[in-house]
């Protein structure tokens, strides 16, 4: 569905490449998670996909076609993106905000159709934000805002969902709800590409993990293949152990206190 091939990105006036030869694939029906420390290039990957940073090398394909070649609008009907940071300075209502997800489907003048309205209603239902629809987005809590943004991406209605840290600011319950929702969307056939810091949750929900380190792929494979103590310790530069989650048996990372280092 979405394939990054040998992607390299250099930000202006920087010596080091932000991404250096990253290849990965997000396929339909699976959650593919990109993990890695701060500054490892995770968000750059998302920005490269939507064309906000030029590629120095390599290419990004959506269903085999070069993502940068066609129209951005057409790409947006197939791939929905929730970026890491977003702020609305104006008090737009939650319902209207979710409806902006239909933007790529609308022309300059065409009014939203029944299909558009149904997509918005479904997105509001599956993300369980019905109680918020009349509120202005400027008055939402951090957690509510994340769910509303997710609803907007679901309303966009493509085959692929790309999310950059979708559970920041969420409490345990809402965080689990988001992961369950992503898992359900993947089972329904969507390609979910997820950038996350929540290694332990990702280990439980993701089908495929890609570990980035300084702009390159340090490891990839199933959670069990990637979540290895020595690898994670080197990449995160912190002493840690990987155990089994007592409840579900997934690999689980436990960082140690710094005095036990060395």
């Amino acid at each position, binding site marked *: 569905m979405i394939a990054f091939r040998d992607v390299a990105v250099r930000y*202006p*006036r920087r010596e080091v490449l932000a991404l250096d030869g990253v290849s990965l694939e997000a396929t339909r029906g699976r959650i593919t998670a990109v993990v890695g420390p701060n500054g490892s290039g995770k968000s750059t990957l*998302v*920005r490269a996909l*939507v*064309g*906000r*940073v030029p590629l120095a090398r390599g290419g990004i394909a959506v269903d085999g076609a070069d993502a940068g070649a066609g*129209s*951005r*609008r*057409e*790409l*947006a*009907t197939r*791939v*929905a*993106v*929730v*970026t890491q*940071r*977003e*702020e*609305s*300075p*104006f*008090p*737009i*209502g939650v319902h*209207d905000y979710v409806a*902006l*997800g239909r*933007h*790529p489907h*609308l022309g*300059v003048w065409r009014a939203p159709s029944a299909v558009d309205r149904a997509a918005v209603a479904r997105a509001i239902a599956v993300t369980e934000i019905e109680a918020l629809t009349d509120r202005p987005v400027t008055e939402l809590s951090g957690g509510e805002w994340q769910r509303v943004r997710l609803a907007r991406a679901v309303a*966009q209605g493509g085959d692929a969902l*790309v999310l950059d840290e979708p559970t920041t600011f969420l409490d345990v319950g809402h965080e689990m709800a988001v992961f369950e929702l992503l898992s359900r969307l993947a089972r329904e056939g969507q390609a979910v590409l997820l950038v996350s810091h929540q290694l332990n949750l990702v280990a439980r929900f993701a089908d495929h993990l890609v570990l980035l380190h300084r702009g390159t792929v340090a490891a990839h494979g199933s959670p069990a293949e990637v979540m290895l103590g020595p690898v994670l310790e080197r990449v995160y530069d912190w002493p840690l152990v990987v155990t089994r989650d007592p409840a579900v048996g997934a690999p689980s990372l436990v960082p140690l206190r710094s005095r036990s280092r060395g």
Partner: protein
Amino acid sequence: MRLSRWLLIGLALAAAALAGIAFGTLRLSPPDVWHAALGQGDPMHVTIVRSLRLPRVLLAALVGAGLGAAGAALQGATRNALAEPYLLGVSGGAAVGAVLAVALHAPPALIPLAGFAGALAAVALTLLVARAGGGHGDARTVLMAGVVVGSFANAAIMVALSNADPSVVRGALWWMMGSVADASWPQVRVLSLFVAVGIAILIALARAIDVLALGEDTAAGLGVDVARVSLGVYVAGALLAAGTVAAAGLVGFVGLLVPHLVRLAGARTHRGLIAGAAIVGATLVVLADVIARVALPPSELPLGAVTALVGVPFFLARLRRLA
């Protein structure tokens, strides 16, 4: 925005226009205005209404409509509630052009043209500086470039005026304070073209501005060509601002304040916001011009000062609401 609100702001504009035609050194009753507009009754009334007050009111309305719409679109596209039409260097550039024209003893008719040219040159410079800064369409880069170009223009004006003849200083200052006192039908025709084209472009971009207001990365993810839409808004906004500056000098606060009023009235999307800001902006400037005429007869207050004086209490009330 609800239909009743649209009717209300439409009626307010009509009432303001009527007041603009009726009030002045010679006060006319509404029936007098009606007859004179149709060319009947006292010939002096006909002349006053048709050749003086009607173009004056129309010019004020066009200035307000252009500034209001440009402000609404620029605030959305830059995600900055303090953005306004003069911010891309328009005011500074226009002032440099006007001061140069006055200092070089150009005929008065050339001053608006010089102001227009200065405004467009400043906007072009702002966009070039922003591009050289390499912000990839980042609105903050453009805003900062606008501030830099504006400061440079102000410095240039101060240098030019510091050694200038007092009459030059006075002429330049007077033009900068804004006025529609010398309105004429040709001016109305030219500005109506600018305002119609500018607002049409902004309304066509309104949906994209809704999305752009969420941030460049999010907008790109929703299929918006960020660089192209931003440039469209900047160019249309600059044309509107420069056109109004050429017609009436600097009329401050309208482009900043009016979009906030229309948002308070319930405009949710930029299509309604831009259209509403055009109507409310027109009303505000027409009313401000009436006040400028009648406040201290027989002299007139500068229009730009009145819009700011009227605007400040509104803005304070808005701030209180935010606090």
